[in-house]
Structures are given as C-alpha cells and as structure tokens.
C-alpha cells in the first residue's frame, strides 16, 4: 500500500517511469534526482505520509530502499 503510493510519488517528482522505481534505485542512477529534486521528494513524502524526517535522515535518504525504511519506521512508531 505504502509502496504503491511511494512508487507513484517518486516517479512523478523525478519524472521517470514507474517501472524504473525499484528497490535498487539510488540517487546517482536517476539524472533528474538532483539536490532540488531531493528536497521536493522529502517535502512530498512528508506531506503524503504525514511524517517529519530529521535533517540527518534527509541527507542519508539517497535510495528508494532508504525511503521505504523511514516511512515504515515512522508508520510503526
């Protein structure tokens, strides 16, 4: 459920195909994933999942896998 929403969100913000958004996706793989896009992702994730990430988490959130981890962590908490 969360993963579906996240996949859609990442594909939309980064302007890439949903099929490319897999657990292997890292920031250096997508050309559109620059520093501004990164913050757009953060803002979108925070809004969509009603969570607030710390600056450290934001800086280390360089892969799709990490995003899922943080969302799971806050969802569980």
């Amino acid at each position, binding site marked *: 459920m969360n993963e579906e929403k996240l996949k859609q969100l990442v594909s939309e*913000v980064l302007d890439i195909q949903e099929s490319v958004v897999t657990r292997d996706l890292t920031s250096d793989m997508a050309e559109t994933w620059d*520093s*501004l896009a990164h*913050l*757009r992702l953060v*803002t979108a994730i925070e*809004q969509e999942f009603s969570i607030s990430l710390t*600056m450290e988490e*934001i*800086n280390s959130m360089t892969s799709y896998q990490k995003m899922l981890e943080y969302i799971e962590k806050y969802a569980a908490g």
Partner: protein
Amino acid sequence: MRKLLRAVRKYNDTPEAGHGWKRLHIAYLGNVTFDPLPDYVEVAAACRGISTRAYIAGYGQYMQELIADSAALNEFAADFIFINLDLRELAPDIATGFTSLDKQQLQDSRERILSTVRECIRLALAKQQANVIMANFPAPASYQYGIADQKQAYGEGEFYTELNAELRNIAREDARVQVLDVERLAALHGKAAAFSEKLYYLAKIPWQEAFCPLLADQLVRHVEAARGLVKKCLVLDLDNTLWGGVLGESGPHGIKVGHGDGESEAFFDFQRRIIALKNRGILLGICSKNNPEDVQEVFQQRPDMPLSLADFSAVEVSWNMKHENLERIAANLNIGLDSLVYIDDNPAECELIRQMLPDITTVLLPADPAEYPALLDRLHGFDKAVIEEEDRLKTRQYAENASRNAFQAGFDDLTAYFESLQTKVTIRLAGEQDKQRIHQLFAKTNQFNLTTRRYSIADIEGIMATDRYRLYVCAASDRFGDLGKIGVLLLDMQLPEVAVIDSFILSCRAMGRGIETAMMNYIKEHYLANGFLKALTAEFIPTRKNMPAENFYPQQGFTVVESGVESGTRYELRAADARLSDCHWIDVIKQVNT
C-alpha cells in the same frame, strides 16, 4: 501540482500563449533558494490567464547580477523583479543574536539592512525597465526576549515593525516599487507553518511548500494590479446577499441587517466592506429580482443600512432574466462584461450567468454571512497598485453620468444637449503629477483607445524623459461635476515635419460628447495650422473592444494610407487638408505651459 505545472508549461511554450502583453517575465533575486515558489507563481498566473517565464538569479548573487549588469538578467528583460532578502543571511547578528546587541547597535544594523535594500532597488530600477516587488521582513514566530519583548526599550517586535515601516517609505518614493507583505501573509497562514527551519538549514529555502501557493497568489495580485488587469464593477444580488431574508416576504423591517443579532451584524459589516471597495474606485451595481418600489422603500426606510442607493452606479431591479439585466448594466456603464464581478447566493442564478455570460466573473456566496467578507478578500481584480483621489471620485462621476443620461432624455437636439452640459476642457503637456493617472488610462481604457498600447510606468517615465515624444493629458469638467483627467494623447516627433499619433485615449465616461474632437482640434491648431509640421500620421489597431473609435480618424478628415493590414489601418492628414471639426460647445481653457 507537478502535473498542473507540466500542463501550464506545455501551454506557455506554444506561440499563442499570452500573446503580447499578457506574457510576462518575472526575475527572482535574493539570498534564498526560491524553488519551488516560481513554479507556484507560474501556475497561479496561468489561472488568471497570464503566461509567465521565470529567471532565478544565482543564490545570493542579487547584488552582483545588478551591479555587473549580468548579461543573462538583461537578456531576460524582466517585467517584474521579485526581491526577497532573508535577514539570517543579510544580518545574522539580528536573526540569532538580537539580545547581545544594544539599541544603538540594533539601529545601526537596521540602517545597514535598509541601505542594502535601497541600493538593490536603485540598481534594479536603473538597469531594468521592470517593476520591483520587494518582500518585506517577517518577524520571527517567537522573540529572543520571550514575553518581555513587549517591555524592552527596543524589542525584536519593534525592530521588525520599524524596519518594515522604513521599507514602506522607500517604496512610496517610486511608483514602480511595490512591497509584498510577507509578514501579513505569514501571519495569515500561521508563521510556524509558513517557514521551515529544516529546509532553510538544508537548502536555504525559507518557506514551507504549503505556504508557497499563498505567496504566489499575492505575487500575482501585484502583477495584475501593476498591469491594470482589474475588475471595474461589483454587481450584487439583494436578498440573502446584502441582507438576510427575502424582502418580498419579510418587508423592509423584517430583513436582517443592522444591529441586535449576529446575523444582522454580519450583513451590516458586509455592506461596510462593500463601501470600502467603492472607496477603492470599484463601481457598484444591483441586479435583483424584486419589485423596484420595494427596493426603493427599503433603502428609504432603513437608514441603519450602511449602503444607500446613491452608492450604486447601476441599479437593475426587475423580474427579467438576470443575464439580461447584467448586460444592461455593462452597457449603461459603458464597460465590458469581463470588467464585471457578480455575487449571488443562489446557485441556479450563478450557473445561469456562467453559461449565458461566461465573460463575467460569477461568485457564489457561502452559506454563512460570517464568511462573506473573507470571500471578498480572496477575489482577484479589486487590487490596485495604488489608490488615488481619482479612484475615490470615480464612482461619483459615474453617478453624475447617470444624471447626465437622464438629463439627455429631455433634449431632441444633441447639440442643444451638448451646449447645456457646459463642458470645460484643459489640454496640456503631462507633468510628474499626472504619471499615475496616465498609467491608469493606458492600462485600463479599452473602448476609445486607438492603438491600445499598454505602457508601463517605466515606459511612461521614459517617454517623459526624452524630446522624442510629446505627451498630452486632458482634463474635463461640466455642470454636473469634475470628470478629472480623462484623456491622453502621445505624439512621436522622431521624424522631421511629420508627427505620428502613437496613442490617443479617452476614458469611456467622457466619450461621445466632442471631447475627442476638441483634443484633435488642439493638435491640428498647434502642429498643422501654424506650419510647424507638414502632416500628421495615425493608426487604428482594432481590438475586441475599441470598435467605438473605429471611424474616428476619417471623421476628423484623415485619409487612409494603408488598410487591411494585420496591424490595423494607417491614416494621414496633410497640413493643407486640415480643418477644425465642430465642437463649439466645448470651452477649451488656455494653458500657459504649451
């Protein structure tokens, strides 16, 4: 939002997007990361039919780009420059070390901030033709002195109040400078939710994304106001709009307005807010299905209502279809349907107007009158860059026009009617004091406007500063009152012996009574009859609205030089062929300065 933006971008890239003056360039300069604000502005502007392009100066490069005359910024040719300076960067001692400074140091710091602001604005005005929109400085959500801030000799709250007051003073010095009140918007939105420390630390983005739509909306309001994209008339329904209840059922004393209960007070306050719009220069109209006698009666018998019938420039009360009445209001006031906003509580009526007259902005009232005033605040089109005495007088002038029209009915012979008006006209070269009004006339006149060139304040200043142009302003009065400055005529003197009439504009409230002829005669007398020029040339560029002026030049003795071209018809009048046209009923007062 991203999908919306993509759609807007796609449209903005097409050649027909916002053809001409509705395609605007906005440059963002400051010491913050503007993203994603420009995207929101692009979408908000598109919602108002304005196609925009953004230029975002390098982070913190605002001074360098202005001083070094950055080629990129020059090439962008901004129509608007939005400047946002964050004190955390500009004056970190204030932002985080406020309590460590004494009053003198604080005031010195304030002066340093202001001199940067002044310099920034000065450079922007000097190097660019753009209007400058300067963000003011939002006070922080909490103060470093805590609750004692209010008792301090020079507290943080006071510091920001003074800083923003000084910024206002700077903006008052130049018509091209506007202040965007971020302080008020942030308070409206809630400061805690407007700003983001986290985004600022990570990327120097000051605003939370959720605040950006509001900020963008405000920026677009400034753009619309500066470009004269405004509404001229607010037309209101009566029952459950200006008062609670149905007049035909409850009678003049049964309707809810005035004092005594909450609902009545809400309608009372709503009426006061409508008067405030009238004071801004917005015309008021009534369009209601009611018995005309009942409406007359209620305004007579309820002096506790803030609005009186005299406040309205157009009143259509009948059992006719509302769209017919609205069309009549536009015709009587001599304004286009797209200059009207119509407010009603009845969804069916609103839908009817939307379908029949889509050019009118139709607004459905919320169920609760307590929310009516907030609705007025949200509407676009009633914002003006600056409100002048002319605006305050305007609604009276339209009311005077109504009595002129009633008076006209008593005459069979038009000339006799014109003579009875006792029109007095002055025509003179424009001065500094006319600049604002001339800009309004350029921006807002649609009907008697031969070329519809929308010159900005900067353009007008440029025109006034050179010898190439002669810019005339015309003012008029008659037995019913003062019409104010109602005409503009711009001559381009670049060529030897021939002058080109670049623009010829007459406000619609002064049309059709010979004033345009008096202005033309004045030019013929001063430039052709005395041999100063060999000929005048002129052009008529048709628009959707200026058909009333289509035959003006032929009527004044001009002959067609070129017609059928896309840009309109070109005319010429040789000195040898020039004759004055009859408008003997107009008394042209001689001026010394021409």
